[in-house]
């Protein structure tokens, strides 16, 4: 009897990355509004983070430029020209809000699709492919959200500074511009990383589960 042989059984093919990218794009497109909400969560976190960091930089530069005429927002700043402990607190807070907000968005976005993951595995998806799909999706969302968030954060802090310091704020740009751009860059990478890390955990867990268990998960 042929029992115990693996005759006739093949290994499931690995789909090319291009196919995974196509499917993840399509997946984002067909659940556009749901993806937008997740992306908006990332956007807000990053916008807050960029606004706080850039805000402190702009304040520092502008108080120096305007000297005594400056609108003194903090005695510390005028005295030392450094970031005050209050601002450090704000930056830390914004970072926490950003990390927790994005991680939560991604966690929910993956967890609500456990059943779908189970179904895909029933239909022949490899664990690796499932994880790949979710990492790509979260990466796209993270990047889009973070780019838009950095822009929104920058624009809002510019508007606020415009109100505080007048048009002079544009003349000061060469002094703070580089640092602000650097903050925006860091925030973009941060946003994308947190989004991917936030999605990786539940996606990996769901992919490892036997399909029967994944499909049983109710949220």
């Amino acid at each position, binding site marked *: 009897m042929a029992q115990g042989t693996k005759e006739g059984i093949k290994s499931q093919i690995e789909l090319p990355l291009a196919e995974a990218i196509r499917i993840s794009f399509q997946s984002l497109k067909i659940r556009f509004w749901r993806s937008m909400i997740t992306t908006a969560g990332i956007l807000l976190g990053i916008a807050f983070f960029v606004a706080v960091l850039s805000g402190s930089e702009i304040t520092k530069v502008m108080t120096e430029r305007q000297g005594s005429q400056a609108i003194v927002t903090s005695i510390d700043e005028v005295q030392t020209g450094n970031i005050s402990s209050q601002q450090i607190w704000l930056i830390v807070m914004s970072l926490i809000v950003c990390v927790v907000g994005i991680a939560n968005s991604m966690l929910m976005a993956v967890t609500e699709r456990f059943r779908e993951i189970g179904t895909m595995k*029933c239909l022949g998806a*490899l664990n690796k492919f499932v994880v790949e799909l979710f990492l790509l999706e979260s990466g796209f969302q993270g990047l889009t959200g973070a780019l838009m968030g950095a822009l929104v954060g920058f624009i809002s802090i510019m508007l606020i500074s415009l109100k505080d310091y007048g048009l002079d704020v544009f003349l000061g740009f060469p002094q703070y511009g580089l640092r602000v751009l650097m903050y925006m860059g860091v925030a973009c990478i941060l946003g994308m990383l947190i989004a991917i890390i936030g999605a990786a955990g539940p996606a990996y867990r769901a992919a490892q589960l036997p399909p029967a*268990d994944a499909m049983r998960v109710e949220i």
Partner: protein
Amino acid sequence: MSEAVVKSDIAVKTVGITKEYQMGGTILRALKGVDVEIKRGEYISIMGPSGSGKSTLFNMIGALDRPTAGTVYIDDVNLLELNPAEIAWLRCWKIGYIFQTFNLIPVMTAMENVTLPMIFAGLSSSERKKKGMELLTKVGLDQRADHKPNELSGGQQQRVAIARSLANGPSIVLADEPTGNLDLRTGRDIINILRDMNKRENVTIISATHDLKMLDVSDRVIYIRDGMVEQIKARSELKLEIGTIEGEQI
């Protein structure tokens, strides 16, 4: 299919499978040593009250869950010997699944749902479309190809699920209470489609159910109670009983 290596005529065989679940501090024994043999081309119903372990058995046969002990053979291949990529191949090509809750991907159209397993099988886009349409026509839903599951009735959704289960020409179709969420008539339609598939394409059908209508078309019925096989009956032994059971119910 006949040119394949000579194998036994057993499509599915389980040897002493047990399944235990950890429920808080206690261990729940859902299956307590089940041995069944299912021949190629058979239409099998697994019957039993809720909680008897029939869905658990279904999951074991379908390689959707691992038994705590014992072995499952599909087409004479021991599932324990397969690595994850081979299990995925088996799920993709050899077995089709139909669920009580349909399990269609809600954001995808009927066509996209049916062609999803073909993506995993590596078919090209044009091949997928052609085959997808053939399958949807087979279940009478070619006109609804672009509809999403929430735009279809329960019966139609289950027909999409049946089409999807046939995507890569499986030799075994597993159906877990396929008529459980459907009314009497729609349920009968689904059973007829399954029976047709079984007769025409010699697909082995294994269905966990407690729908008595299902018995009428089954070659054999496996009764499960308390995680064990209580009895196995051929259809010829059933005929009379169905009448009485249905008679009692009405």
